């Protein structure tokens, strides 16, 4: 029983350790601003946070199952994800940031697609958080790869747990981000209400999300496409 508690604690702690390490900082900033941006709707912030956690958790569980069942080998999978997902994520975040900021006005024509893409993206809210959780969980960097493939997977194998341990790890990776997002979202909402300027706060929160996404996109693009060493 004690050893199980220790394993459970280790899995969560490995997740937290992954999240607070420097290399996922760029994506964490995007996640925090995205999840916390609906300062006018606290319920929205909390549910988005839960769905972000769910997205991360499901991703790690699936990866764990694929590895533990022997369908995928750790070195190939780890190196593939580290190389390719961040390559995709950089330009994608840049584009999404520019769209959120209205720099790139996108209109999709077709039956039932009259609204601007920007407005539609804003409305995606909850599910965008889940998709973000999946994408960010897949964007491994050296630290997260070491902790997931080198520590969490051996722990899962030892405990014969391809569901529980990766789930707890996923929750651990989301905890710091969700706590920050809720604190910032609710805090800003409270201040906005106090000054009777909730709409203005919400508008600024959305702009900050756009700036964070675009900046992180530029950062990841420079590193993964142009091999620029920024630190």
């Amino acid at each position, binding site marked *: 029983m004690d050893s199980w508690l220790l394993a459970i604690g280790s899995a969560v702690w490995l997740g937290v*350790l992954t999240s607070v390490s420097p290399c996922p900082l760029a994506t964490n900033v995007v996640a925090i601003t995205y999840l916390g941006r609906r300062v006018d709707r606290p319920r929205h912030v909390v549910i988005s946070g839960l769905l972000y956690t769910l997205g991360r958790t499901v991703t790690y569980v699936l990866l764990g199952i694929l590895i533990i069942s022997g369908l995928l080998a750790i070195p190939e999978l780890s190196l593939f994800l580290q190389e390719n997902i961040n390559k995709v994520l950089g330009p994608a975040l840049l584009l999404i940031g520019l769209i959120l900021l209205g720099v790139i006005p996108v209109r999709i024509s077709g039956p039932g697609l009259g609204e601007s893409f920007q407005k539609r993206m804003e409305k995606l809210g909850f599910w965008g958080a889940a998709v973000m959780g999946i994408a960010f969980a897949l964007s491994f960097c050296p630290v997260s790869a070491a902790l997931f493939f080198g520590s969490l997977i051996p722990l899962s194998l030892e405990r014969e747990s391809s569901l529980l341990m990766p789930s707890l790890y996923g929750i651990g990776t989301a905890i710091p981000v969700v706590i920050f997002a809720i604190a910032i979202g609710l805090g800003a909402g409270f201040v906005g209400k106090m000054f009777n300027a909730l709409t203005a706060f919400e508008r600024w929160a959305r702009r900050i999300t756009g700036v964070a996404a675009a900046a992180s996109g530029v950062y990841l693009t420079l590193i993964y*496409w142009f091999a620029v060493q920024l630190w």
Partner: protein
Amino acid sequence: MRKPLQLAVAFIVLASAFVLAGTADPGNETHKKSTSDSTVNVQSPPPGETLVVYYFHGNRRCATCRKLEAYSFEALNNDFKSALADSAILWRVVNFETDSNEHFVKDYGLFTQSLILSRVVDGKEVEWKNLDQIWKLVGDKEQYLTYVTSETRNFLTQSSR
């Protein structure tokens, strides 16, 4: 139900476009010099028994990755200076993403930056160990140095039995 689907499709389309469009390869060495770039070439160890300590890295060198390398070399340099000087211990910094070094990925099952101890007797590797706790300890330099030193000492002791 359409909304999540639309977002997922948008993301996948974007992702595919960038993957398909791009062939830019950042696979060059980094711009900054590492602590011991002079040892990047993986030359053969001398005859007799040698401990080769490999620090493996990829094309991109994150701040934590540089710490791993620096701390590892510091641990060896602090406690095995004479062994390093007379080549009883060889320190090798290797980019496993270059073509000639890709075999190390399979040889040692590398999936990220790693520190490997390899015992070589008369030019042939007889034993190796991945010091897989380095990532957990990198936040505490003292613990990290102690870990690398004690693992290296144990590995050396085993060989002299």
